[in-house]
């Protein structure tokens, strides 16, 4: 540590060059931070601690097919199942198809199971008392400037009302929030009552889109899943039950291999970065060979010189990289505040920082090792003579 100022001085020996290199490193790690944030958001979709004791039951044929509601009491009777939610995708559109947000009809016990969403008690009572009531996430409410008591018209894309009308009007009676601010993305949904939905819709009555089972003990999930699927085996509506995580992972996987795309881009970026900064480091050391020789003359060991050069290259990458990740973190939070939490990006948190810093140190070592060896092996006499 006592040589820090020496390393620092060496790093900024040529200010312009170092600043340009830092900016290149910054750009690379800004991109790393943004892409890793997207990747994390996809990889972790629904992957929250509270979700491990929940399972999702959908039609085995396709999750777009409905299941009969008659399964409900039979699923509830399965040992290990604490509570069962049922829900329907509604797919309603608010004003313009561009205003895409999820809207679902849910059973009354929804918020009792999804404890990561907080609905104030008076709002919950109002929801239970209002047939046409709807409960909306705080982020969505802010986005459209709604308030309690507003009437929200949705145009149905799947389910018309009995009279053939496509317009469903809901009363906003409650606003829920995510318990954990990191899960703001969950505040983008509008829920309304399944009983009203089922009574008013033109077709499909008595069917639900999916069931969600809350388990007493998540270690029994395999066993419970088998028992649930056995209920409908060989019937016309066979089911497929899996943990919420597995379901979300499969759903996200349908978009494509985000990991592969992100990985390929980052490989291209870092390959370029290593060449670029490696070249700069080699150049910087080449220019300073006589200085390194002086250091050795003063009594610096071979290893000392080696570590000085390595420290310099790691410092270079760390400086640029940390600035890049800071920029990425700022960008992500700016995007999230301006566009709402619906963009698939997770905050630049501990895991991304850890990966980033490890990468920085790795790249720093990689680009520093050749120049450092060169510095270590130089012979004082030759170097001082400029040979």
């Amino acid at each position, binding site marked *: 540590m006592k040589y820090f100022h020496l390393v620092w001085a060496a790093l900024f020996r040529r200010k312009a060059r170092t600043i340009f290199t830092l900016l*290149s490193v910054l750009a690379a790690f800004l*991109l790393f931070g943004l892409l890793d944030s997207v990747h994390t958001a996809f990889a972790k979709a629904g992957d929250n601690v509270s979700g491990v004791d929940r399972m999702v039951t959908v039609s085995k*044929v396709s*999750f*777009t097919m409905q299941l009969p509601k008659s399964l409900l009491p039979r699923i509830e009777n399965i040992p290990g199942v604490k509570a069962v939610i049922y829900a329907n995708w509604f797919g309603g559109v608010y004003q313009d198809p561009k205003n895409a947000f999820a809207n679902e009809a849910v059973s009354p016990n929804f918020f009792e199971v999804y404890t990561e969403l907080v609905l104030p008690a008076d709002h919950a009572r109002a929801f239970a008392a209002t047939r046409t009531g709807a409960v909306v996430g705080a982020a969505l409410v802010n986005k459209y400037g709604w308030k309690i008591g507003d009437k929200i018209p949705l145009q149905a894309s799947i389910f018309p009302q009995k009279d053939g009308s496509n317009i469903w009007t809901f009363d906003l009676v409650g606003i829920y929030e995510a318990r954990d601010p990191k899960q703001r993305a969950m505040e983008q949904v509008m829920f309304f009552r399944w009983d009203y939905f089922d009574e008013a819709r033109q077709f499909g009555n008595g069917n639900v889109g999916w069931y969600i089972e809350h388990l007493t003990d998540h270690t029994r999930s395999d066993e419970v899943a088998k028992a649930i699927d056995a209920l409908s085996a060989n019937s016309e509506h066979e089911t497929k039950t899996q943990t919420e995580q597995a379901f979300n992972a*499969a759903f996200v996987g349908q978009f494509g*291999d985000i990991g592969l795309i992100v990985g390929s881009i980052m490989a291209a970026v870092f*390959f370029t970065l290593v060449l670029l900064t490696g*070249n700069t480091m080699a150049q910087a050391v080449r220019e300073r060979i006589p200085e390194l020789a002086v250091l050795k003359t003063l009594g610096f060991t071979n290893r000392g010189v080696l570590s000085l050069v390595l420290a310099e290259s790691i410092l270079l990458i760390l400086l640029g990289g940390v600035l890049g990740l800071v920029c990425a973190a700022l960008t992500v939070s700016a995007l999230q505040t301006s566009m709402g939490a619906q963009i698939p990006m997770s905050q630049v948190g501990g895991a991304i920082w850890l990966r980033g810093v490890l990468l920085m140190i790795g790249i720093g070592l990689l680009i520093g090792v050749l120049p450092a060896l060169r510095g270590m092996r130089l012979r004082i006499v030759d170097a001082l003579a400029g040979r």
Partner: protein
Amino acid sequence: MVTEDFEKETHMRKILEVILSFGIMLTALVGVIALLVVLPWWLLPVLVLLLVVWMASTRYGHQTRSVTWIGLSSLTQRLGSSSVVVIGIAGVVGVLVALLAMAEGFQATMQQTGSEDTAIAVRAGSMAELNSVLMREDIMLIAQASGVKKAPSGQPIASAELIVGASLVKKSNGLDANVEIRGVGAHVWEIYPNAHIVAGRLFTAGMNELIVGKGAHEQFAGNDIGATLILNNQQWKVVGIFDSGDAHDSELWGDADVVASVFRRGSSRSSVTVRLTDADAFDTFKAALSGDPRLHVDTKTTRDYYSEQSEQLTRLIRILGTTIGVIMAIGAVFGALNTMFAAVATRAREIATLRAIGFRGLPVVVSVMLETMLLALAGGVLGAAIAWLVFDDYTASTLGSSFSQVVFAFKVSPALIWNGLKWALAIGFLGGLFPALRAAQLPVTTALREL
């Protein structure tokens, strides 16, 4: 007093210089962005030609030629650092072209799917076929509407189709993915003239048989000819593979009546697609449907329908691709700046000597710029070539707008490659401009005195 004035003057000059270089930077940025947006491909040869004429016919041109030649012939001595520019720019262009090729391929697949002389009708407000339900009466009314072409037998060419989803396993990641099963009617081959059987045979009407689109066959496991799929607790035999060269390649087709009975849809269907007498007949057809009080349907030409379905995703990929490209390009500009400044620094004495024997500033600027642009162009060509070799016709699938998979192929078109080259040239321009100006402004005496 005198020194004070002198200091003041140098101070003023420094401020002026900063303002000037800032101005140059802004102008360069604006100029380059304008270049990026508007430059048509034929302008490049014209510019090159002008440059060649200038170099061949004027005094400055001659000077530029010699300086450039010296620079280029000493390039091999600076191979390491010059290749950094080439590879850096190749990375930017490669990633950019690959990402835009994804958007282009998806859009092309969706747009090819439709045509101007077929129209699709779905229930009002449903936006996608999967959401739509049409009853038997609706289907009859739609098929009989004016504007629909009649077959020689006198029957209208209309296909009432039923869309249901099925879970198949995606080969690439082993996870379940939702695939569209399209129950089709007798007129299907007249509605989709591009589609034809490429292996096996057509399904037999009334049987639990399916034909698989070429894309679906490649992307999903377990649907070879002869395989049995269990859908809705019934066995379905795969009897053929069809190729339509568009989004229908991602689907499985079966007899609409069989699909309807197995999936308990009775006589209802999802959509009706009709062949119009000609492209102009769409307005007649649309007016006929909206004028009928018994019908609540939305209708579009199939071209519009499928284009709209690709709009959102295509835009998203384009925005993402461009953002990533811009960030990478910024990194590459600084890399190029570093390399070219170093190149100018190593050639400082040589350039100063040239200046001392009477070469002017402009040829020096132009020659450094030319060198950078050539390196950038090489990088652009390399990047575009890699993107083309690896990604042209690379097939992938993603979630389309009706919650089911759409298989598409990346498309590295000439326009995209040109786009990538424009980016390369812009990066080269920005990365070369300041080193070039520096080279021209080098004070001759100090540069000559330097070691």
